[in-house]
């Protein structure tokens, strides 16, 4: 039956050849594919309009790689032994030697140029005190529920480490015998040794105070005299 708009060209279906039907189907699928691709792109860019599940934090992290400042982060790399016979892991953070606690498996390094990417405006204070870099790692407990963060600042010189230690010091906090000078408050340990200024911050304050102190001792022990 001829359509209103195609009265002149309408044909019966059985008059359409196989070849013509195949080409027509291909063109139709192509159009559908283009529309679908556009919809997917829009959905990807405006995911808050379309997503029905939980936010994809990992994807957000990956997308942010194009936006904020670059951060050097690495899983500790194996290095060759001096005799080349084997490889061992080099991790700046020592083994805590504590039941249930694991050494950081992901380590972030920042220099004076991008320190703000970790501590934002606080970086200016450290820059004033001559910070050379920051190494950050988180000790994790086997139950996955609590962590101990370590901010290990290289202040370049012992005097500068002492200066920043004093600038942030809680004068009333009880002293502990770690490194050259240290105190512990609310479970967190703050120490200095050589050019290093280290903050050991447990997520569970009193419960992990002992673990934080042990980790601080291990870190101080790993710093050369």
């Amino acid at each position: 039956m001829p359509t209103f708009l195609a009265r002149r060209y309408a044909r019966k279906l059985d008059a359409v050849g196989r070849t013509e039907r195949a080409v027509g189907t291909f063109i139709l699928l192509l159009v559908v594919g283009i529309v679908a691709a556009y919809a997917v792109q829009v959905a990807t860019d405006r995911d808050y309009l379309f997503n029905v599940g939980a936010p994809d934090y990992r994807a957000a992290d990956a997308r942010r790689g194009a936006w904020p400042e670059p951060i050097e982060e690495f899983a500790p790399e194996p290095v060759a032994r001096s005799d080349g016979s084997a490889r061992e892991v080099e991790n700046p953070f020592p083994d805590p030697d504590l039941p249930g606690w694991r050494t950081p498996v992901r380590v972030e390094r920042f220099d004076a140029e991008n320190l703000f990417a970790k501590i934002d405006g606080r970086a200016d204070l450290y820059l004033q005190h001559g910070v050379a870099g920051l190494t950050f790692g988180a000790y994790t407990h086997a139950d996955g529920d609590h962590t101990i963060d370590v901010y290990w600042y290289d202040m370049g010189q012992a005097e500068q480490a002492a200066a920043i230690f004093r600038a942030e010091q809680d004068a009333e906090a009880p002293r502990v015998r770690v490194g050259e000078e240290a105190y512990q408050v609310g479970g967190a340990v703050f120490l200095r040794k050589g050019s290093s200024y280290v903050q050991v911050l447990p997520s569970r304050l009193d419960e992990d105070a002992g673990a934080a102190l042990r980790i601080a001792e291990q870190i101080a022990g790993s710093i050369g005299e």
Partner: protein
Amino acid sequence: MAEPRWTRRELLTRGAGAVLGGGAAVAGGYLLYDPKGDRGLPRWQPRLGLKNFFAQIDLPAGHPRLSVAVGPEHRTEELVRAAVGGLDPALGLRRFVQPGDVVLIKPNVGFDRPPHVGATTNPEVLRWIIRLCREAGAREILVTDNPIESPQACFSRSGIAAAVETEGAKVVLPAPAQFELVLLGQPQARSRAPGTAAAWPVLYRPLDRATKLIGVAPIKDHNLSSASMTLKNWYGLLGGRRHQLHQTIHEAISDLAALLSPTLVIADGTRVMLHNGPTGGRVSDVRPGGQLGRPVLVASVDPVACDAWCYQRLLGRDPAALDYLRLAEQKIQARVAAGERRFGQRDWLAYDRAGQVVTTTL
């Protein structure tokens, strides 16, 4: 079925038509192909401003401008209801949020720190604000921030993600496509090219979608700006190399204060970071209610007055000495004089004398 028999003329005509049609489609696709998409669009014209989220609020002249709730610990729900209810005892948040609204809540999720450090908004405070928005009939509740560190780590470790998701609101994570250049600064800077301090990437898409905006900020010491409160909270909507603004941080905060006119702000004084801000780390740096010694929440339709009150009463400092407050007041009052409907004055005592500061002690 037999193939139709075509004449030579029909074959040539149909073939030519197919070739022409296919060729036109290919040519059109080639001409229209844009590998960069929206990101390739020239951004030489930044947006000149943002929505005024307070302009449509029907707030009677004599109503409170500042509502302070002081209470014992672990009674967060009552604190939130008292703070918001103090702005309108009859309607509470319904004065500000109506059925069908899309509410954007901007907490501070800036750092990968647990809640007890006080570097981020208290997730329990956020939880009850979301609940109040839902009770007021909000159609959709969005929560967003552009953290300093990994969004996954910050939203998770701060407890914000869990609070948002259990209350049925939605986290809007920062993504490049959601930022747009917005003019940040004085109008005469319009002639500057983008990428300079005048045109800055702002987390625009959630702001565009929302009909109401609520800022919820912890009260913290800050080594650069002296304090981080409700006005500094908008910093988390900036993208790009925003650390460059640290050089002129008071100007930047006051520019943001002028740019953003929220529906209301809530100052979270449940854990006040008195020293070593904005990151903190010592529990001894944090005290409930700061100088007051008890958890405090402040709800206000005047962010400048709110910050002045918190700076004085919670941090124990003189608001007259805080540069960005002075600059924010100047810039907002200039906009008020130009006809914009909003509040922005440092002199919270003037509100107090007029009976427009409500204090509720639980």
